[in-house]
């Protein structure tokens, strides 16, 4: 029989724990106040317009939702793909996945024009809409993740772990495909009309979810003085490297596909060369900070041995991920809709004369605060979860991991 894993609640000092909770609560309160302000005044107080209709809140929301499905991968690797070394990581993976999803959904809902009509969205469906499907994919994901956690924690449910885990894995693939398809099925826009967006979102979720997971794991273990051995860290880090590389690969394919089709060359030259902030976000954020730099750290012979550098790589992947979402969501809206091929748009109607030019968008403070509030909600759920329930293994030392790998 392989070694038994011992789970313990998060045992950091109460002052530290309550301090953290108070800080997160404050951030959430500020985010909530920002949402209330936008809701009360209307969206005119944001940077959003009739051209850029989805702003910074969507960047955060989509990132959190994508990362949520990715965070569950760690559990899937253990149960579905039978890697014993990942088994002790599974519970935290499920918790983080649920927490990130709740955070993301809150931001999404609070950015609606009529958040008070959430009940309408929950009761009135148009099934030709990917959005309507996503409502089921998201709530289903939460329910399945909670069920999955139960099979891990309750001995009576242990035998169900594999089938439930497999189902959760398939569900999360559907979820990210659905999220990617929100954009991929928009035929009218140059940037979006491509099926490659759905698999690209799946790969992005692998990378962002794992980066978020590693940061949470390393921080919570560090605070509690629990050991993480070099072996498990090396495995996670290498996996992250693989995922980040895959994101870059899909990015390349996405742009090559666009460049090959002559009708999209204008959009590509906008994004890759002359798009100002969006070009900067693409090369500097998406490619460099979120891709090449973390890869450099992860495969550097010396830096990759240092925990702080590994954590830095994870943080860079997250920052780069937010930049990627900014480019995908906002850059693509800022670029004018191409309605008249072969023609220059001299003017696009007296009001909002922006049809021919790139639409301006400057994110406002309330939007940013709402987005950060969503992140804080996810962190609060994780903090409370690991404090009151046994989500984290006592140790992930090399000895412990070796013991798990022993044959039954």
């Amino acid at each position, binding site marked *: 029989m392989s070694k038994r894993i011992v789970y313990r609640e998060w045992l950091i000092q109460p002052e530290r724990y309550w301090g953290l909770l108070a800080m997160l609560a404050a951030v959430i309160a500020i985010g909530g106040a920002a949402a209330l302000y936008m809701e009360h*005044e*209307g*969206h*005119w*107080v944001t*940077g*959003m*317009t*009739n*051209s850029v*209709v*989805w702003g910074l809140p969507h960047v955060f929301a989509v990132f959190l939702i994508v990362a949520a499905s990715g965070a569950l991968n760690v559990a899937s690797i253990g149960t579905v793909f039978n890697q014993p070394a990942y088994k002790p990581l599974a519970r935290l993976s499920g918790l983080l996945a649920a927490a990130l999803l709740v955070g993301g959904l809150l931001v999404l809902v609070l950015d*609606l*024009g*009529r*958040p008070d*009509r*959430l009940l*309408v*969205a929950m*009761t*009135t*469906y*148009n099934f*030709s*809409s*990917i*959005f*309507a499907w996503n*409502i089921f994919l998201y709530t289903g994901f939460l329910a399945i993740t909670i069920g999955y956690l139960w099979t891990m924690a309750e001995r009576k449910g242990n035998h169900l772990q594999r089938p439930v885990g497999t189902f959760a894995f398939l569900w999360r693939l559907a979820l990210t495909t659905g999220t990617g398809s*929100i954009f991929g*099925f*928009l*035929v*009218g*826009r140059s940037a979006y009309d491509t099926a490659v967006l759905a698999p690209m979102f799946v790969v992005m979720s692998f990378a962002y979810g794992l980066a978020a997971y590693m940061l949470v794991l390393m921080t919570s273990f560090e605070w509690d003085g629990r050991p993480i051995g070099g072996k498990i860290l090396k495995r996670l880090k290498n996996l992250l490297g693989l995922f980040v590389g895959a994101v870059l690969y899909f990015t390349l394919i996405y742009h090559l596909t666009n460049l090959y089709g002559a009708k999209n060359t204008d959009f590509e030259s906008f994004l890759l060369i002359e798009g100002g902030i969006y070009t900067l976000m693409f090369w500097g954020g998406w490619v460099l900070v979120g891709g090449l730099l973390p890869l450099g750290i992860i495969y550097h012979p010396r830096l990759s041995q240092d925990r702080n550098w590994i954590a830095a790589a994870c943080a860079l992947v997250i920052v780069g991920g937010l930049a990627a979402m900014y480019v995908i969501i906002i850059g693509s*809206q800022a670029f004018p*809709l191409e*309605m*008249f091929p*072969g*023609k*220059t*748009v*001299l*003017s*696009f*109607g*007296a*009001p*909002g*004369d*922006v*049809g021919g030019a790139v*639409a*301006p968008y400057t994110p406002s403070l309330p939007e940013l605060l709402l987005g950060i509030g969503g992140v804080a909600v996810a962190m609060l759920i994780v903090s409370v979860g690991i404090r009151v329930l046994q989500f984290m293994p006592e140790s992930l030392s090399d000895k412990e991991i070796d013991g798990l790998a022993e044959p039954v």
Partner: protein
Amino acid sequence: MSREVDRELNPQRRRFLGAAAGAVAGGAGGVGAAAIGALTAASPERADAAPRTEPVSDRHRWGMFVDTAKCADGCTACVDACDQENGLNLQAKPLGDDKAKWQNQRAVWIRKVKLQDKTSGHVTNLPLMCQHCEHPPCVDVCPTGASFKRADGIVMVDRHTCIGCRYCMMACPYKARSFIHEEVDQKLTRAPRGMGCVESCNLCAHRLDNGQTSTACADACAAEGHHAIVFGDLKDPNSPVRQAMAKQPSRQIREDLELNTGVRYAGV
């Protein structure tokens, strides 16, 4: 009750039952709301074809033909008329909003577009509004079914079920939709408007429902003597719009998307 009256009432009764069945079957969707609307409109006392007594049917498909050669440079009669008709001129910039930003935040149903051919330099003017597609992307993507297409081809928003997600605005290839960014102080009964919902051109549905057969923009264009916009029933070969379309070739904007738009343009 005489036989004649009975015969007249029977179709009415059938419609009533049909609508009721529709309301039950589609209770969860926007279809239900539309059916209930039809139900209340079809009062048994008014079996004749007077305005507002019958549910909208697919006997007509309303549409427009725009002859860009007749659309005058610098003229904004259609835009002004639409603003008046649909209360868009009642919008006020919120105190403290940036002037340039507000220009792109206020609702616009019809805009005047000016194009120049990249090769020949030829300049074209045209009005651009909701194209009332047969296969509208905005209706496909709307999660609640608030964005819907009427039987007579008009694409519009049910403001009771719109949650303000703006997905339709992302999907529309024509930038035809507007989100209400601000608190609305004044509005017209015929064009209700509320903060947090999306709206767009509805081909002056209130006029059509009252028996009129023209839109404010088309009327204004004619009054200016341009006659660039011709409105009518695309299904009626004798309607002015079909007559105008028969005389010269026309096309749809973003024809590649095969949305079969209800608004067609000549000279683009």
